């Protein structure tokens, strides 16, 4: 029996028959490194060259809670996609074989570790910068970077160990719980800024040393576990990664949303219930959105908890501004998307309409209701928390949240209904170079967000503290909402 190295060499040698990397490939790699360095250089010089006063305790606490919530989200995402996965061919020919499992999977695990470490370095430096950097130079930044990398490696390692133990679902639930608790703590810090004698800011060097020691321990455990890593866990993760890769290569992000939803529903036992007798035919397609949301109640709970995020972000960032307005807009879209599952599923398909024997504005209008209710509900909840935290002062701003609902509902339905990327769209040809830019994926990315951003500008103006009060923007928002909904229904 050959070693993994010899087997991979055979595969590589055969693969080279289809063409060695040319100078353009190396040029692209080199250019990516140079451009990446140039992009990172500016912020890094900024971090190293400017002293920043440390945050007050309550703002630091909010920041720490955001970091913990981010780690929990990272753990949940890592657990959802694998994280240990190999190319589909390797999964079949190398994993289901007597080859040393550790050698087969080492490269995949190393990739997970490198990605986690790089993300951790960036996060560590960013957090250090926001939290305060009273001293110049590489020392404090290096300590923060090491701590960030170590924490993220620990999180990724925990996801790998959970995958090996077949406890991915348990860990994802635990991560959701930790994330919710972190947001709640951040909210508590935002609501109670004056906590005498308490400071969440711990000395960074001991924290970094502890984090690095923990990362080494977790890495050792992962290395030990790799030798007996279960094949089934790698195979299913590889299938998921295959879909994600196909989506990336084929520029079809809808694949990812589809497989996430499919994975959720596949793991559940559903009970058939009759459709309400009072339901008019034109409301039937909308009813499936309500029913599907009713079968995912935890998603509403998570949405409700995330309504505290804008306040925590505002406190950590030192006040309301464009950042908080963007978080509000994105959060409302995310919450409203929970009510557009059916639209996402039957996007571009006339089958459902034919099945129910309905179509037109009535059906579309009915389907606007749930996303609108969710968007308004989330925005009102987030606004209340912002008001309680003292970030906002005028309770009248709740009306702005209500006024933004219709625009967001239309935007979310456009997002849900955009379907596949149109790769057959006419490209833009550059007159000087003759090169061309495909437009299908650009249109795909813009669809939906165009209505959300352009239509939501009056609300963003108020939320970001633009001058001129709230009355006029709110009135404009109402008019824009009416026009957008009218235009949306007219096209149905």
């Amino acid at each position, binding site marked *: *029996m050959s070693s993994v190295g010899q087997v991979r060499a*055979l595969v590589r040698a055969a*693969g080279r028959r289809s063409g060695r990397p040319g100078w353009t490939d190396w040029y692209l790699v080199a250019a990516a490194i140079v451009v990446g360095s140039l992009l990172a250089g500016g912020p890094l010089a900024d971090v190293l060259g400017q002293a920043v006063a440390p945050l007050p305790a309550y703002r630091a606490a909010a920041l720490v809670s955001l970091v913990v919530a981010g780690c929990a989200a990272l753990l949940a995402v890592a657990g959802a996609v694998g994280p240990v996965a190999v190319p589909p*061919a390797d999964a079949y*020919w190398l994993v289901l074989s007597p080859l040393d499992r550790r050698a087969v999977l080492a490269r995949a695990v190393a990739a997970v570790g490198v990605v986690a470490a790089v993300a951790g370095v960036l996060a560590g430096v960013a957090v250090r910068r926001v939290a305060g950097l009273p001293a110049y130079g590489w020392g404090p930044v290096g300590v923060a970077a090491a701590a960030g990398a170590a924490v993220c490696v620990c999180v990724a390692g925990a996801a790998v160990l959970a995958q090996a133990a077949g406890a991915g679902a348990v860990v994802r639930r635990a991560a959701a719980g930790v994330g919710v608790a972190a947001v709640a703590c951040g909210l508590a810090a935002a609501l109670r800024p004056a906590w005498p004698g308490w400071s969440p800011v711990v000395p960074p060097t001991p924290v970094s040393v502890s984090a690095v020691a923990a990362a080494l321990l977790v890495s050792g455990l992962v290395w030990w576990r790799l030798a007996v890593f279960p*094949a089934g866990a790698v195979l299913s993760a590889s299938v998921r990664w295959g879909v994600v890769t196909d989506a990336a290569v084929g520029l079809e992000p809808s694949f990812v949303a589809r497989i996430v939803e499919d994975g959720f529903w596949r793991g559940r036992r559903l009970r058939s219930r009759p459709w309400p007798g009072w339901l008019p035919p034109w409301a039937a397609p909308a009813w499936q959105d309500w029913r599907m949301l009713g079968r995912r109640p935890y998603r509403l709970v998570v949405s409700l908890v995330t309504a505290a995020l804008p306040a925590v972000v505002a406190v950590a960032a030192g006040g309301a501004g464009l950042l908080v307005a963007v978080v509000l807009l994105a959060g409302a879209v995310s919450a409203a998307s929970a009510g557009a599952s059916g639209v996402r599923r039957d996007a571009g398909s006339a089958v459902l309409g034919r099945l129910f024997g309905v179509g037109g504005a009535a059906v579309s209008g009915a389907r606007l209701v749930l996303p609108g209710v969710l968007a308004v509900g989330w925005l009102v909840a987030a606004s209340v928390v912002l008001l309680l935290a003292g970030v906002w002062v005028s309770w009248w701003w709740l009306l702005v949240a209500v006024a933004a609902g219709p625009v967001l509902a239309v935007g979310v339905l456009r997002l849900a209904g955009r379907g596949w990327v149109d790769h057959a769209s006419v490209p833009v040809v550059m007159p000087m170079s003759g090169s061309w830019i495909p437009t299908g994926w650009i249109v795909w990315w813009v669809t939906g967000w165009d209505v959300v951003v352009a239509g939501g500008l009056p609300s963003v103006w108020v939320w970001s503290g633009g001058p001129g009060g709230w009355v006029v923007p709110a009135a404009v928002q109402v008019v824009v909402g009416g026009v957008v909904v009218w235009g949306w229904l007219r096209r149905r």
Partner: protein
Amino acid sequence: MDRLDLDVGDGEVVALSGVNGTGKSTLLRCLSGLLSPTAGTVRVWGAPPDGRPGFWRTVGLAAEEPAWYPGLTAREHLDLVRLTHEPLPGPSASVDELLDVFELGGHADASPLTLSSGQRQRLALAAVWARPSRLLLLDEPEQKLDQQFRGVLAGMLRQYADGGGTVVLATHDPVLAAAAGARVLAMSGGRLEGAVASA
């Protein structure tokens, strides 16, 4: 699956039959260690199938179509199997012989991606036969095969069992099962209903 009790001896061919969704593939996944039962025990040669490298020294699995290396030919895929497995004591067919038996001699230097679906299925089965195994787990191996090659496959299954190997297959083809001399067990609703035919 529920209240499932099954013993399979050496040199036996067991065919699981039943309509779609009765648990045939799930049972095969449990036997291969890719899925752990929530209750009860599964033992292969006295030990739970753990799917670890040692397990695959003597077990061949053909479930869904494998992912192919686009740069490797049909012959190189079989060579790869030979590279990754230690040979068991006793005679074994060479790669050329396997290509001939599976009627792929004329396509040895073709990429699997250029083969028809039936030819790819034969190559997938050839890869299972290239493994030096004592147990074969096959999930609907007759898929995409023409009637003539199903007969060949039945003969190969019988020959494998006569050589001391054990086969557990899920199939919708009673003719294949009978020709292979299989003990046919009907599954229904995740339960084993019992033997329905013996050859």
